[in-house]
Protein backbone atom coordinates (compact mmCIF):
# COMPACT_ATOMS: atom_id res chain seq x y z
CA UNK A 1 0.00 0.00 0.00
CA UNK A 2 1.45 3.35 -0.98
CA UNK A 3 1.85 6.09 1.64
CA UNK A 4 -0.68 8.32 -0.10
CA UNK A 5 -3.55 5.84 0.03
CA UNK A 6 -2.70 5.09 3.62
CA UNK A 7 -2.84 8.77 4.46
CA UNK A 8 -6.27 9.22 2.97
CA UNK A 9 -7.54 6.10 4.70
CA UNK A 10 -6.50 7.41 8.07
CA UNK A 11 -7.76 10.86 7.25
CA UNK A 12 -11.20 9.43 6.77
CA UNK A 13 -10.99 7.98 10.22
CA UNK A 14 -10.04 11.34 11.71
CA UNK A 15 -12.34 13.49 9.69
CA UNK A 16 -15.36 11.55 8.48
CA UNK A 17 -16.62 12.46 5.03
CA UNK A 18 -19.86 14.35 5.17
CA UNK A 19 -22.89 13.50 3.10
CA UNK A 20 -22.37 15.19 -0.25
CA UNK A 21 -25.67 17.03 -0.23
CA UNK A 22 -24.53 20.45 -1.39
CA UNK A 23 -21.93 19.17 -3.73
CA UNK A 24 -23.51 18.11 -6.99
CA UNK A 25 -21.31 18.13 -10.07
CA UNK A 26 -23.10 21.22 -11.30
CA UNK A 27 -22.37 22.95 -8.05
CA UNK A 28 -18.68 22.24 -8.41
CA UNK A 29 -18.63 23.40 -12.02
CA UNK A 30 -20.33 26.66 -11.16
CA UNK A 31 -17.86 27.24 -8.36
CA UNK A 32 -14.97 26.64 -10.71
CA UNK A 33 -16.44 29.18 -13.15
CA UNK A 34 -16.80 31.83 -10.46
CA UNK A 35 -13.26 31.08 -9.31
CA UNK A 36 -12.06 31.65 -12.86
CA UNK A 37 -13.93 34.96 -12.92
CA UNK A 38 -12.20 35.93 -9.67
CA UNK A 39 -8.85 35.03 -11.16
CA UNK A 40 -9.50 37.19 -14.24
CA UNK A 41 -10.50 40.21 -12.12
CA UNK A 42 -7.49 39.71 -9.88
CA UNK A 43 -5.16 39.38 -12.85
CA UNK A 44 -6.45 42.58 -14.39
CA UNK A 45 -6.15 44.57 -11.17
CA UNK A 46 -2.69 43.18 -10.46
CA UNK A 47 -1.49 43.87 -14.01
CA UNK A 48 -2.78 47.45 -13.97
CA UNK A 49 -1.14 48.02 -10.57
CA UNK A 50 2.19 46.70 -11.77
CA UNK A 51 1.99 48.65 -15.00
CA UNK A 52 0.78 51.85 -13.31
CA UNK A 53 3.99 53.85 -13.91
CA UNK A 54 3.80 52.95 -17.62
CA UNK A 55 0.09 53.65 -18.02
CA UNK A 56 -0.60 56.65 -15.82
CA UNK A 57 0.94 59.96 -14.85
CA UNK A 58 2.05 61.10 -11.41
CA UNK A 59 -0.58 60.09 -8.81
CA UNK A 60 0.40 63.02 -6.60
CA UNK A 61 0.23 65.66 -9.34
CA UNK A 62 -1.82 68.50 -7.90
CA UNK A 63 -3.92 70.66 -10.26
CA UNK A 64 -5.73 73.52 -8.58
CA UNK A 65 -7.41 74.40 -11.87
CA UNK A 66 -9.23 71.07 -11.76
CA UNK A 67 -10.30 70.41 -8.16
CA UNK A 68 -13.36 68.27 -7.36
CA UNK A 69 -14.33 67.64 -10.98
CA UNK A 70 -16.99 65.08 -11.79
CA UNK A 71 -16.06 62.11 -13.96
CA UNK A 72 -15.34 63.26 -17.52
CA UNK A 73 -13.33 62.01 -20.52
CA UNK A 74 -10.28 63.87 -19.18
CA UNK A 75 -10.71 62.39 -15.68
CA UNK A 76 -12.77 59.18 -16.01
CA UNK A 77 -13.27 58.89 -12.21
CA UNK A 78 -13.12 62.63 -11.51
CA UNK A 79 -10.59 64.56 -9.41
CA UNK A 80 -10.18 65.06 -5.66
CA UNK A 81 -9.94 68.17 -3.49
CA UNK A 82 -6.39 68.82 -4.73
CA UNK A 83 -7.26 68.24 -8.38
CA UNK A 84 -5.46 64.88 -8.43
CA UNK A 85 -6.76 62.42 -11.02
CA UNK A 86 -8.73 59.73 -9.19
CA UNK A 87 -8.27 57.01 -11.82
CA UNK A 88 -4.49 57.42 -11.53
CA UNK A 89 -4.68 57.31 -7.75
CA UNK A 90 -7.00 54.29 -7.67
CA UNK A 91 -4.66 52.37 -10.00
CA UNK A 92 -1.60 53.38 -7.98
CA UNK A 93 -3.52 52.50 -4.82
CA UNK A 94 -3.57 48.89 -5.99
CA UNK A 95 0.21 48.80 -5.69
CA UNK A 96 0.05 49.76 -2.01
CA UNK A 97 -2.82 47.42 -1.20
CA UNK A 98 -1.31 44.38 -2.95
CA UNK A 99 2.07 45.14 -1.39
CA UNK A 100 0.69 45.48 2.14
CA UNK A 101 -1.49 42.38 1.72
CA UNK A 102 1.35 40.24 0.35
CA UNK A 103 3.93 41.37 2.92
CA UNK A 104 1.50 40.94 5.81
CA UNK A 105 0.55 37.41 4.72
CA UNK A 106 4.21 36.45 4.16
CA UNK A 107 5.14 37.77 7.60
CA UNK A 108 2.23 35.91 9.21
CA UNK A 109 3.29 32.73 7.37
CA UNK A 110 6.91 33.14 8.43
CA UNK A 111 5.86 33.35 12.06
CA UNK A 112 2.79 31.11 12.06
CA UNK A 113 4.10 28.04 10.22
CA UNK A 114 7.17 27.33 12.38
CA UNK A 115 5.28 28.01 15.60
CA UNK A 116 2.37 25.83 14.46
CA UNK A 117 4.60 22.94 13.41
CA UNK A 118 6.65 23.05 16.60
CA UNK A 119 3.51 23.29 18.74
CA UNK A 120 1.85 20.34 17.04
CA UNK A 121 4.99 18.23 16.70
CA UNK A 122 6.48 18.77 20.14
CA UNK A 123 3.23 18.56 22.08
CA UNK A 124 3.35 18.72 25.88
CA UNK A 125 4.30 21.92 27.64
CA UNK A 126 5.47 23.66 24.46
CA UNK A 127 2.11 23.03 22.82
CA UNK A 128 0.25 24.17 25.91
CA UNK A 129 2.19 27.44 26.10
CA UNK A 130 1.77 28.17 22.39
CA UNK A 131 -1.94 27.46 22.57
CA UNK A 132 -2.41 29.80 25.51
CA UNK A 133 -0.57 32.45 23.51
CA UNK A 134 -2.86 31.88 20.54
CA UNK A 135 -5.92 32.04 22.80
CA UNK A 136 -4.66 35.35 24.09
CA UNK A 137 -4.24 36.81 20.60
CA UNK A 138 -7.67 35.48 19.65
CA UNK A 139 -9.20 37.20 22.69
CA UNK A 140 -8.72 40.42 20.74
CA UNK A 141 -11.07 40.61 17.77
CA UNK A 142 -8.84 40.70 14.64
CA UNK A 143 -9.36 44.27 13.50
CA UNK A 144 -9.14 45.52 17.07
CA UNK A 145 -5.77 43.80 17.52
CA UNK A 146 -4.39 45.49 14.41
CA UNK A 147 -5.82 48.80 15.59
CA UNK A 148 -4.27 48.42 19.06
CA UNK A 149 -0.88 47.63 17.57
CA UNK A 150 -1.11 50.72 15.35
CA UNK A 151 -1.91 52.75 18.48
CA UNK A 152 1.35 51.53 19.98
CA UNK A 153 3.57 51.45 16.88
CA UNK A 154 2.25 54.52 15.08
CA UNK A 155 1.13 54.86 11.45
CA UNK A 156 3.08 54.09 8.26
CA UNK A 157 3.42 51.24 5.75
CA UNK A 158 5.76 49.08 7.87
CA UNK A 159 3.62 49.34 10.97
CA UNK A 160 0.44 48.58 9.02
CA UNK A 161 2.11 45.44 7.61
CA UNK A 162 3.25 44.33 11.08
CA UNK A 163 -0.15 45.01 12.69
CA UNK A 164 -2.12 43.21 9.99
CA UNK A 165 0.35 40.29 10.08
CA UNK A 166 0.21 39.83 13.85
CA UNK A 167 -3.58 39.72 13.68
CA UNK A 168 -3.31 36.89 11.12
CA UNK A 169 -0.68 34.79 12.94
CA UNK A 170 -3.08 32.85 15.21
CA UNK A 171 -5.01 31.64 12.16
CA UNK A 172 -1.88 30.01 10.74
CA UNK A 173 -0.65 28.62 14.05
CA UNK A 174 -3.99 26.87 14.57
CA UNK A 175 -4.21 25.62 11.00
CA UNK A 176 -0.65 24.25 10.83
CA UNK A 177 -0.80 22.79 14.32
CA UNK A 178 -4.00 20.94 13.46
CA UNK A 179 -2.52 19.56 10.25
CA UNK A 180 0.70 18.58 12.05
CA UNK A 181 -1.23 16.71 14.74
CA UNK A 182 -2.97 14.60 12.07
CA UNK A 183 0.20 13.96 10.04
CA UNK A 184 2.29 13.11 13.10
CA UNK A 185 0.16 10.06 13.78
CA UNK A 186 0.37 8.65 10.24
CA UNK A 187 1.94 5.26 9.76
CA UNK A 188 4.41 6.53 7.17
CA UNK A 189 5.87 8.91 9.74
CA UNK A 190 6.39 5.94 12.03
CA UNK A 191 8.01 4.13 9.13
CA UNK A 192 10.29 7.06 8.39
CA UNK A 193 11.32 7.19 12.01
CA UNK A 194 11.98 3.46 12.09
CA UNK A 195 14.26 3.98 9.10
CA UNK A 196 16.27 6.42 11.19
CA UNK A 197 14.90 9.79 10.06
CA UNK A 198 15.38 12.56 12.62
CA UNK A 199 12.74 15.10 13.70
CA UNK A 200 14.21 17.71 11.39
CA UNK A 201 14.01 15.46 8.35
CA UNK A 202 10.49 14.34 9.23
CA UNK A 203 9.27 17.91 9.63
CA UNK A 204 10.93 19.18 6.46
CA UNK A 205 10.20 16.20 4.24
CA UNK A 206 6.82 15.00 5.49
CA UNK A 207 5.03 17.39 7.82
CA UNK A 208 5.56 20.69 6.00
CA UNK A 209 4.68 19.47 2.47
CA UNK A 210 1.47 17.99 3.84
CA UNK A 211 0.46 21.28 5.48
CA UNK A 212 0.80 23.08 2.17
CA UNK A 213 -2.72 22.66 0.81
CA UNK A 214 -4.66 24.21 3.70
CA UNK A 215 -2.01 26.93 3.98
CA UNK A 216 -2.36 27.90 0.31
CA UNK A 217 -6.15 28.03 0.52
CA UNK A 218 -6.07 30.03 3.75
CA UNK A 219 -3.47 32.45 2.40
CA UNK A 220 -5.60 33.32 -0.61
CA UNK A 221 -8.53 34.17 1.64
CA UNK A 222 -6.16 35.89 4.07
CA UNK A 223 -4.81 38.16 1.33
CA UNK A 224 -8.28 39.60 0.87
CA UNK A 225 -8.75 39.92 4.62
CA UNK A 226 -5.36 41.65 5.03
CA UNK A 227 -6.17 44.18 2.31
CA UNK A 228 -9.53 44.83 3.97
CA UNK A 229 -7.95 45.36 7.40
CA UNK A 230 -5.27 47.67 6.01
CA UNK A 231 -7.91 49.68 4.15
CA UNK A 232 -9.95 49.92 7.36
CA UNK A 233 -6.95 51.37 9.17
CA UNK A 234 -6.44 53.81 6.29
CA UNK A 235 -10.09 54.85 6.43
CA UNK A 236 -9.68 55.74 10.10
CA UNK A 237 -6.64 57.85 9.21
CA UNK A 238 -4.41 55.30 10.97
CA UNK A 239 -2.85 53.60 7.97
CA UNK A 240 -0.44 54.75 5.34
CA UNK A 241 0.62 58.39 5.52
CA UNK A 242 -0.85 60.79 2.94
CA UNK A 243 -0.26 61.67 0.18
CA UNK A 244 0.50 58.01 -0.62
CA UNK A 245 -2.48 56.84 -2.69
CA UNK A 246 -4.05 54.13 -0.52
CA UNK A 247 -7.65 53.07 -1.09
CA UNK A 248 -8.81 53.22 2.53
CA UNK A 249 -7.17 56.58 3.14
CA UNK A 250 -8.63 58.01 -0.09
CA UNK A 251 -12.06 56.79 0.98
CA UNK A 252 -11.73 58.39 4.41
CA UNK A 253 -10.72 61.69 2.85
CA UNK A 254 -13.52 61.39 0.32
CA UNK A 255 -16.16 61.04 3.02
CA UNK A 256 -15.60 64.69 3.93
CA UNK A 257 -16.85 65.69 0.46
CA UNK A 258 -19.57 63.05 0.25
CA UNK A 259 -22.57 65.37 0.13
CA UNK A 260 -21.49 67.12 -3.09
CA UNK A 261 -18.84 64.87 -4.59
CA UNK A 262 -19.91 61.23 -4.39
CA UNK A 263 -17.17 59.89 -6.65
CA UNK A 264 -14.16 60.52 -4.37
CA UNK A 265 -15.26 57.95 -1.78
CA UNK A 266 -17.08 55.64 -4.20
CA UNK A 267 -14.32 54.43 -6.54
CA UNK A 268 -11.55 53.57 -4.07
CA UNK A 269 -14.12 51.56 -2.08
CA UNK A 270 -15.28 49.78 -5.21
CA UNK A 271 -11.66 48.81 -5.89
CA UNK A 272 -11.29 47.31 -2.38
CA UNK A 273 -14.60 45.47 -2.81
CA UNK A 274 -13.51 43.98 -6.16
CA UNK A 275 -10.10 42.84 -4.93
CA UNK A 276 -11.44 41.25 -1.75
CA UNK A 277 -14.28 39.53 -3.62
CA UNK A 278 -11.83 38.21 -6.21
CA UNK A 279 -9.55 36.77 -3.52
CA UNK A 280 -12.55 35.16 -1.83
CA UNK A 281 -13.74 33.59 -5.10
CA UNK A 282 -10.28 32.23 -5.92
CA UNK A 283 -9.79 31.02 -2.34
CA UNK A 284 -13.12 29.17 -2.31
CA UNK A 285 -12.35 27.72 -5.73
CA UNK A 286 -8.89 26.57 -4.61
CA UNK A 287 -10.38 24.93 -1.55
CA UNK A 288 -12.79 22.97 -3.73
CA UNK A 289 -10.09 22.01 -6.18
CA UNK A 290 -7.37 21.09 -3.67
CA UNK A 291 -9.36 19.80 -0.74
CA UNK A 292 -12.73 18.48 -1.85
CA UNK A 293 -13.41 17.00 1.57
CA UNK A 294 -13.45 20.39 3.30
CA UNK A 295 -16.77 21.33 1.73
CA UNK A 296 -18.14 24.81 1.18
CA UNK A 297 -17.27 27.40 3.78
CA UNK A 298 -20.16 28.14 6.09
Amino acid at each position, binding site marked *: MSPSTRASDTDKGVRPT*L*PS*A*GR*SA*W*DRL*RRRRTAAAGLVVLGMLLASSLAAPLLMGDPDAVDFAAVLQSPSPAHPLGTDQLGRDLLTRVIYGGRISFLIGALAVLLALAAGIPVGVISGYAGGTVDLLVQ*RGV*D*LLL*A*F*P*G*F*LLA*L*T*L*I*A*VLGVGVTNVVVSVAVAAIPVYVRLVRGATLVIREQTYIEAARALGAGDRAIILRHVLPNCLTPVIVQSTLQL*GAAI*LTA*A*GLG*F*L*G*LGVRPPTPEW*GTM*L*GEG*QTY*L*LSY*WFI*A*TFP*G*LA*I*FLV*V*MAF*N*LVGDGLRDALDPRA*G*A*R*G
Partner: protein
Amino acid sequence: MRAPLGRYVVRRLLYALPTLLGVTLAVFLLVRLIPGDPARLIAGLLASDDEVQRLRVELGLDRPMPEQYARFLASVLAGNFGLSAVTRTPVIEEIGIRMRATLTLAVTSTALAVAAGLSAGVLAAAYHNTAVDYAVMMAALGGVSVPVFWLGIMLMLLFAVHLHWVPAGGSGTPAHLILPAVTLAAFSTAIVARMTRGSLLETLNLDFVRTARAKGIGEGAVIIRHALRNALIPVVTVVGLQFGTLLGGAVLTETTFAWPGLGRLLVSAITARDYPVIQGIVIVFAAMFVVVNLVTDLLYVAVDPRIRYG
Protein backbone atom coordinates in the same frame (compact mmCIF):
# COMPACT_ATOMS: atom_id res chain seq x y z
CA MET B 1 -19.73 8.78 30.32
CA ARG B 2 -21.36 12.06 30.97
CA ALA B 3 -19.88 14.51 33.40
CA PRO B 4 -22.39 16.79 35.07
CA LEU B 5 -23.08 19.93 33.08
CA GLY B 6 -22.34 22.03 36.16
CA ARG B 7 -18.76 20.89 36.25
CA TYR B 8 -18.29 21.79 32.59
CA VAL B 9 -19.72 25.25 33.18
CA VAL B 10 -17.39 25.83 36.11
CA ARG B 11 -14.39 24.58 34.15
CA ARG B 12 -15.24 26.75 31.16
CA LEU B 13 -15.57 29.75 33.48
CA LEU B 14 -12.22 29.04 35.12
CA TYR B 15 -10.70 28.71 31.67
CA ALA B 16 -11.88 32.18 30.66
CA LEU B 17 -10.17 33.78 33.66
CA PRO B 18 -6.54 33.23 32.58
CA THR B 19 -7.45 34.60 29.15
CA LEU B 20 -8.82 37.75 30.74
CA LEU B 21 -5.74 38.03 32.94
CA GLY B 22 -3.58 37.58 29.85
CA VAL B 23 -5.49 40.37 28.13
CA THR B 24 -4.69 42.79 30.94
CA LEU B 25 -1.02 41.69 30.93
CA ALA B 26 -0.78 42.10 27.15
CA VAL B 27 -2.28 45.59 27.26
CA PHE B 28 -0.05 46.52 30.21
CA LEU B 29 3.09 45.38 28.36
CA LEU B 30 2.03 46.92 25.04
CA VAL B 31 1.69 50.40 26.47
CA ARG B 32 5.11 50.01 28.10
CA LEU B 33 6.62 48.97 24.78
CA ILE B 34 6.00 52.44 23.40
CA PRO B 35 9.29 54.30 23.22
CA GLY B 36 9.44 57.16 25.69
CA ASP B 37 8.47 57.78 29.28
CA PRO B 38 5.24 55.94 30.20
CA ALA B 39 4.37 58.57 32.80
CA ARG B 40 4.61 61.25 30.13
CA LEU B 41 2.48 59.13 27.76
CA ILE B 42 -0.21 58.47 30.35
CA ALA B 43 -0.23 62.05 31.55
CA GLY B 44 -0.69 63.32 28.02
CA LEU B 45 1.09 65.93 25.97
CA LEU B 46 -0.42 68.84 27.89
CA ALA B 47 0.73 67.76 31.36
CA SER B 48 3.36 69.77 33.25
CA ASP B 49 6.59 68.20 34.57
CA ASP B 50 5.17 68.28 38.10
CA GLU B 51 2.07 66.45 37.02
CA VAL B 52 4.14 63.83 35.22
CA GLN B 53 6.29 63.29 38.33
CA ARG B 54 3.21 63.02 40.55
CA LEU B 55 1.70 60.46 38.15
CA ARG B 56 4.94 58.49 38.06
CA VAL B 57 4.82 58.05 41.84
CA GLU B 58 1.05 57.60 41.92
CA LEU B 59 1.14 54.81 39.30
CA GLY B 60 4.26 53.34 40.85
CA LEU B 61 6.16 53.64 37.60
CA ASP B 62 9.36 53.90 39.63
CA ARG B 63 8.74 50.39 41.02
CA PRO B 64 9.76 47.02 39.53
CA MET B 65 7.60 45.72 36.63
CA PRO B 66 5.84 42.85 38.46
CA GLU B 67 4.75 45.24 41.19
CA GLN B 68 3.59 47.71 38.57
CA TYR B 69 1.48 45.04 36.93
CA ALA B 70 -0.01 43.96 40.26
CA ARG B 71 -1.06 47.56 40.93
CA PHE B 72 -2.40 47.93 37.41
CA LEU B 73 -4.42 44.73 37.70
CA ALA B 74 -5.80 45.72 41.09
CA SER B 75 -7.06 49.05 39.79
CA VAL B 76 -8.51 47.49 36.61
CA LEU B 77 -10.39 44.96 38.74
CA ALA B 78 -11.70 47.83 40.83
CA GLY B 79 -12.94 49.44 37.60
CA ASN B 80 -10.32 52.14 37.79
CA PHE B 81 -8.71 52.76 34.40
CA GLY B 82 -7.18 56.09 35.43
CA LEU B 83 -7.87 59.53 33.98
CA SER B 84 -8.10 60.43 30.33
CA ALA B 85 -4.93 62.23 29.27
CA VAL B 86 -7.06 64.66 27.24
CA THR B 87 -10.27 65.35 29.15
CA ARG B 88 -9.02 64.51 32.68
CA THR B 89 -12.24 62.65 33.41
CA PRO B 90 -12.07 59.06 34.72
CA VAL B 91 -11.77 56.65 31.79
CA ILE B 92 -14.40 54.37 33.29
CA GLU B 93 -16.95 57.22 33.14
CA GLU B 94 -16.19 57.92 29.49
CA ILE B 95 -16.52 54.22 28.72
CA GLY B 96 -19.79 54.04 30.65
CA ILE B 97 -21.30 56.88 28.64
CA ARG B 98 -20.38 55.31 25.29
CA MET B 99 -21.03 51.69 26.20
CA ARG B 100 -24.80 51.94 25.71
CA ALA B 101 -24.48 53.20 22.16
CA THR B 102 -22.08 50.42 21.18
CA LEU B 103 -24.17 47.72 22.83
CA THR B 104 -27.34 49.03 21.17
CA LEU B 105 -25.62 48.92 17.80
CA ALA B 106 -23.99 45.51 18.33
CA VAL B 107 -27.12 43.82 19.68
CA THR B 108 -29.39 45.28 16.97
CA SER B 109 -26.94 44.20 14.28
CA THR B 110 -26.64 40.71 15.71
CA ALA B 111 -30.41 40.33 15.87
CA LEU B 112 -30.69 41.59 12.31
CA ALA B 113 -27.93 39.24 11.12
CA VAL B 114 -29.55 36.23 12.77
CA ALA B 115 -33.03 37.02 11.42
CA ALA B 116 -31.93 37.87 7.88
CA GLY B 117 -29.15 35.28 7.70
CA LEU B 118 -31.35 32.44 8.92
CA SER B 119 -34.18 33.30 6.52
CA ALA B 120 -31.83 33.64 3.57
CA GLY B 121 -29.99 30.44 4.46
CA VAL B 122 -33.22 28.44 4.80
CA LEU B 123 -34.52 29.82 1.49
CA ALA B 124 -31.27 28.95 -0.27
CA ALA B 125 -31.32 25.40 1.10
CA ALA B 126 -35.03 24.89 0.39
CA TYR B 127 -34.58 26.08 -3.19
CA HIS B 128 -31.17 24.45 -3.60
CA ASN B 129 -29.60 24.90 -7.05
CA THR B 130 -32.26 27.33 -8.21
CA ALA B 131 -32.05 31.06 -8.93
CA VAL B 132 -33.02 31.76 -5.29
CA ASP B 133 -30.05 29.76 -4.05
CA TYR B 134 -27.62 31.51 -6.41
CA ALA B 135 -28.95 34.94 -5.54
CA VAL B 136 -28.49 34.27 -1.81
CA MET B 137 -25.00 32.89 -2.33
CA MET B 138 -23.98 35.85 -4.49
CA ALA B 139 -25.33 38.29 -1.91
CA ALA B 140 -23.44 36.40 0.79
CA LEU B 141 -20.23 36.63 -1.21
CA GLY B 142 -20.82 40.37 -1.47
CA GLY B 143 -21.47 40.54 2.26
CA VAL B 144 -18.18 38.90 3.24
CA SER B 145 -16.18 40.95 0.72
CA VAL B 146 -17.58 44.47 1.04
CA PRO B 147 -15.60 46.93 3.18
CA VAL B 148 -18.02 47.83 5.96
CA PHE B 149 -17.10 51.54 5.86
CA TRP B 150 -17.68 51.73 2.10
CA LEU B 151 -21.03 49.94 2.39
CA GLY B 152 -21.99 52.46 5.06
CA ILE B 153 -21.05 55.38 2.84
CA MET B 154 -22.93 53.95 -0.15
CA LEU B 155 -26.07 53.33 1.93
CA MET B 156 -25.72 56.84 3.34
CA LEU B 157 -25.48 58.31 -0.19
CA LEU B 158 -28.56 56.44 -1.36
CA PHE B 159 -30.92 56.50 1.62
CA ALA B 160 -29.85 59.68 3.41
CA VAL B 161 -28.41 62.04 0.81
CA HIS B 162 -30.63 61.17 -2.17
CA LEU B 163 -33.82 59.67 -0.81
CA HIS B 164 -33.85 61.49 2.57
CA TRP B 165 -35.46 58.47 4.22
CA VAL B 166 -33.10 58.37 7.19
CA PRO B 167 -30.56 60.69 8.79
CA ALA B 168 -27.00 60.43 7.44
CA GLY B 169 -25.36 60.22 10.83
CA GLY B 170 -25.51 61.03 14.50
CA SER B 171 -27.82 59.48 17.06
CA GLY B 172 -30.88 60.14 19.19
CA THR B 173 -33.85 58.58 17.42
CA PRO B 174 -34.47 54.99 16.32
CA ALA B 175 -34.18 56.23 12.71
CA HIS B 176 -30.53 57.05 13.39
CA LEU B 177 -29.91 53.41 14.24
CA ILE B 178 -31.18 51.95 10.95
CA LEU B 179 -28.25 52.60 8.61
CA PRO B 180 -25.43 51.80 11.07
CA ALA B 181 -27.16 48.59 12.18
CA VAL B 182 -27.82 47.39 8.62
CA THR B 183 -24.25 48.25 7.59
CA LEU B 184 -22.67 46.46 10.52
CA ALA B 185 -24.97 43.45 10.10
CA ALA B 186 -23.97 42.80 6.46
CA PHE B 187 -20.92 40.65 7.14
CA SER B 188 -22.49 38.57 9.90
CA THR B 189 -25.68 38.11 7.88
CA ALA B 190 -23.64 36.64 5.04
CA ILE B 191 -21.78 34.26 7.36
CA VAL B 192 -24.99 33.14 9.12
CA ALA B 193 -26.70 32.61 5.74
CA ARG B 194 -23.82 30.46 4.42
CA MET B 195 -23.64 28.46 7.63
CA THR B 196 -27.42 27.90 7.79
CA ARG B 197 -27.57 26.82 4.16
CA GLY B 198 -24.63 24.42 4.44
CA SER B 199 -25.77 22.97 7.72
CA LEU B 200 -29.38 22.58 6.57
CA LEU B 201 -28.36 20.89 3.32
CA GLU B 202 -26.36 18.35 5.31
CA THR B 203 -29.17 17.76 7.78
CA LEU B 204 -31.74 17.28 5.00
CA ASN B 205 -29.73 14.26 3.89
CA LEU B 206 -29.87 12.51 7.26
CA ASP B 207 -31.96 9.46 8.07
CA PHE B 208 -34.39 11.11 10.47
CA VAL B 209 -35.35 13.64 7.83
CA ARG B 210 -35.96 10.83 5.35
CA THR B 211 -38.18 9.20 7.95
CA ALA B 212 -40.12 12.43 8.40
CA ARG B 213 -40.57 12.70 4.64
CA ALA B 214 -41.63 9.06 4.44
CA LYS B 215 -44.37 9.78 6.94
CA GLY B 216 -45.80 12.11 4.31
CA ILE B 217 -45.03 15.42 5.98
CA GLY B 218 -44.82 18.36 3.58
CA GLU B 219 -41.39 19.65 2.63
CA GLY B 220 -41.93 22.98 4.42
CA ALA B 221 -42.74 21.26 7.69
CA VAL B 222 -39.82 18.88 7.24
CA ILE B 223 -37.45 21.81 7.00
CA ILE B 224 -38.92 24.05 9.68
CA ARG B 225 -39.99 21.49 12.24
CA HIS B 226 -37.40 18.74 11.83
CA ALA B 227 -34.26 19.72 9.97
CA LEU B 228 -33.83 23.33 11.08
CA ARG B 229 -33.61 22.51 14.77
CA ASN B 230 -30.59 20.32 14.14
CA ALA B 231 -29.12 22.59 11.53
CA LEU B 232 -29.13 25.48 13.98
CA ILE B 233 -26.50 24.00 16.28
CA PRO B 234 -23.41 25.09 14.32
CA VAL B 235 -25.10 28.41 13.57
CA VAL B 236 -25.04 29.26 17.29
CA THR B 237 -21.24 28.97 17.35
CA VAL B 238 -20.87 31.08 14.26
CA VAL B 239 -22.99 33.87 15.73
CA GLY B 240 -20.74 33.91 18.81
CA LEU B 241 -17.54 33.97 16.78
CA GLN B 242 -18.98 36.71 14.57
CA PHE B 243 -19.24 38.95 17.57
CA GLY B 244 -15.49 39.65 17.37
CA THR B 245 -15.74 40.75 13.76
CA LEU B 246 -18.77 42.76 14.75
CA LEU B 247 -16.84 44.67 17.43
CA GLY B 248 -14.07 45.43 14.93
CA GLY B 249 -16.69 46.48 12.39
CA ALA B 250 -18.36 48.64 15.02
CA VAL B 251 -15.22 50.79 15.23
CA LEU B 252 -15.48 51.48 11.49
CA THR B 253 -19.27 51.78 11.40
CA GLU B 254 -19.38 54.18 14.34
CA THR B 255 -16.76 56.35 12.66
CA THR B 256 -18.66 56.33 9.36
CA PHE B 257 -21.97 57.34 10.93
CA ALA B 258 -20.69 59.52 13.79
CA TRP B 259 -22.32 57.04 16.18
CA PRO B 260 -21.25 57.99 19.71
CA GLY B 261 -19.96 54.60 20.83
CA LEU B 262 -16.77 53.08 22.21
CA GLY B 263 -15.31 52.45 18.76
CA ARG B 264 -15.38 56.08 17.81
CA LEU B 265 -13.97 57.02 21.20
CA LEU B 266 -11.15 54.51 20.63
CA VAL B 267 -10.27 56.03 17.26
CA SER B 268 -10.17 59.56 18.61
CA ALA B 269 -8.13 58.35 21.61
CA ILE B 270 -5.60 56.74 19.24
CA THR B 271 -5.38 59.92 17.20
CA ALA B 272 -4.89 61.99 20.38
CA ARG B 273 -2.48 59.39 21.87
CA ASP B 274 -4.74 59.18 24.94
CA TYR B 275 -3.27 55.92 26.29
CA PRO B 276 -5.39 55.49 29.43
CA VAL B 277 -8.54 55.59 27.26
CA ILE B 278 -7.00 53.22 24.67
CA GLN B 279 -6.02 50.79 27.45
CA GLY B 280 -9.48 50.87 28.99
CA ILE B 281 -11.44 50.39 25.77
CA VAL B 282 -9.21 47.60 24.48
CA ILE B 283 -9.60 45.72 27.76
CA VAL B 284 -13.37 46.25 27.73
CA PHE B 285 -13.68 45.09 24.10
CA ALA B 286 -11.56 41.99 24.70
CA ALA B 287 -13.52 41.20 27.86
CA MET B 288 -16.82 41.53 25.97
CA PHE B 289 -15.54 39.15 23.31
CA VAL B 290 -14.29 36.59 25.85
CA VAL B 291 -17.63 36.70 27.69
CA VAL B 292 -19.65 36.31 24.46
CA ASN B 293 -17.53 33.31 23.47
CA LEU B 294 -18.07 31.84 26.91
CA VAL B 295 -21.83 32.29 26.64
CA THR B 296 -21.77 30.79 23.14
CA ASP B 297 -19.94 27.70 24.35
CA LEU B 298 -22.45 27.25 27.15
CA LEU B 299 -25.39 27.80 24.77
CA TYR B 300 -23.90 25.21 22.46
CA VAL B 301 -24.08 22.61 25.20
CA ALA B 302 -27.61 23.67 25.99
CA VAL B 303 -28.89 23.32 22.41
CA ASP B 304 -27.05 20.13 21.52
CA PRO B 305 -27.85 17.25 23.83
CA ARG B 306 -25.45 15.04 21.87
CA ILE B 307 -22.40 16.82 23.22
CA ARG B 308 -20.83 15.26 26.28
CA TYR B 309 -18.15 16.97 28.25
CA GLY B 310 -16.06 14.69 30.38
